[in-house]
């Protein structure tokens, strides 16, 4: 019923609609001989309201907060950017505040996927290698289990094609996963290891802990 009304989605009208809306003859938008101005005149100016005390408070706090964030370890500057910045010798680089905050980076790595913890990964890199096979085996076992379950769910029948397609994409994804060790080795060679500075503070205790408890990781 509302088939043509869908014109509304794009905001343009068919000639028929224009006619029905009464836009005919002299009421039709005039054909422009020159392109319309980039910034046509506007009816009114933005309304200006006085700044409330609540707003002033928030404005001050926000400015402060953003400055703090910029100086915090959570404001990540990529290696190339970092270099550029020191070249220019930004006065803030020297600010004592910055150093103080930089030193305070804290991540609760226990509550994050292990792959994000660069320090623990480094230490365990050597230990990882012999366990690799075991891990892969387990993965395969897991995958078999999953496939079994899937088959049970689909109950055979006509769904086979679908399943096959899924398997295909699954294995594709599997392929995409690079060997974590290879990636690690690459990184080990990198010299601009600025990120490590962030992890040192306050994590020493945790590291110790990790070491002690390091049973079979995978």
């Amino acid at each position, binding site marked *: 019923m509302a088939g043509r009304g869908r014109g509304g989605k794009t905001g343009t009208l068919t000639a028929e609609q224009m006619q029905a809306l009464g836009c005919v003859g002299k009421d039709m938008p005039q054909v422009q001989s020159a392109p319309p101005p*980039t*910034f*046509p005149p*506007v009816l009114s*100016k*933005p*309304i200006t*309201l006085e700044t409330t005390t609540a707003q002033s408070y928030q404005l001050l706090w926000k400015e402060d907060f953003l400055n703090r964030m910029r100086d915090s370890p959570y404001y990540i500057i990529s290696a190339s950017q970092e270099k550029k910045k020191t070249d220019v010798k930004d006065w803030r680089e020297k600010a004592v505040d910055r150093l103080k905050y930089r030193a305070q980076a804290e991540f609760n790595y226990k509550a994050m996927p292990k792959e994000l913890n660069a320090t623990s990964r480094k230490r365990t890199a050597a230990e990882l290698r012999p366990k690799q096979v075991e891990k892969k085996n387990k993965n395969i076992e897991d995958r078999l289990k999953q496939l079994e379950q899937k088959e049970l769910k689909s109950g055979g029948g006509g769904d086979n094609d679908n399943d096959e397609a899924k398997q295909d994409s699954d294995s594709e994804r599997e392929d995409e996963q690079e060997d974590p060790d290879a990636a690690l080795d690459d990184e080990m060679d990198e010299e601009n290891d600025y990120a490590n500075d962030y992890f040192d503070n306050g994590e020493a205790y945790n590291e110790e802990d990790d070491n002690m408890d390091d049973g079979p990781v995978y």
Partner: protein
Amino acid sequence: MAAEIAQLLLSVIQGIPGGATNDDLNKALSDMPAATRVEGLNILLQQGGIEVLKKGEKLIYRAKDPQKKSALPKDADNEEKVVYSIVEEGGNKGIWIRDIRIKSNLNMTQLNKILKNLETKKLIKAVKSVNASKKKVYMLYNLEADRSVTGGAWYQDQDFEVEFVDVLNQQCLRFLQMKRETAEKKRDGPLAFKQMSCCSVKDVHKFISDLGISKVNLDEDDLETILKTVVYDGNAERILQSDGAYVYRAVNMPLPAPGLVQMPCGICPVIKNCSDCGDVTAINCQYMKDWLD
């Protein structure tokens, strides 16, 4: 009220066969000031409800009978009679010339001539219709054109009187706001306040009539139309009463100006063209520049 006065005068005039003189009116409506009487008579004349005749030194006001056929002269020819009766059938909504031509089977030149003839004899008249620009409709001379043709009080020859409507809209709002302010001063609880700030159409009609800003006679329906525009402007609310009538009251907007219109993008006519590159960007925006400086 002017309309009522006119009605009163008309009934007196209709009551005297052969027409009423000024003396007759004076006798019948002794408590009516002369100025008011003149105003009422003018309205009746405008509406075509009465006609003025001169009898010796005296003026006589005679009621026109809208039902009465204006006499077609005896010497009228057949074509004239046909056209006349077609126009007559059209009533006070009038009839288009094209329809007359089809019904009468006359050619255009002939028909134009006849119509012209009847017009000069003041038997029919041509009225511009507000619905279709440049289209005239014909009707009997003594008829008052229907609202659908004239557009009612808001049209002066087929032109919508924007300023007139705007002034009435503002005055109606002013009245509602005054009522609200008065009600605010009395402290009899919230419901009493609410009731006191409500205005009936009749109240508003009286206020507008007393203001005397309207050259034409407005009835309550006309004012209800205006009051609705006040509601559509978001400045008033329309509340249904138990008797089926509506009352109106001024209200405040529930929100302050939204943040979006406190900056240029909220009122920007070209926001659709705005992006990171091209002619319209946040950096080279003229509105932004005007606003910030």
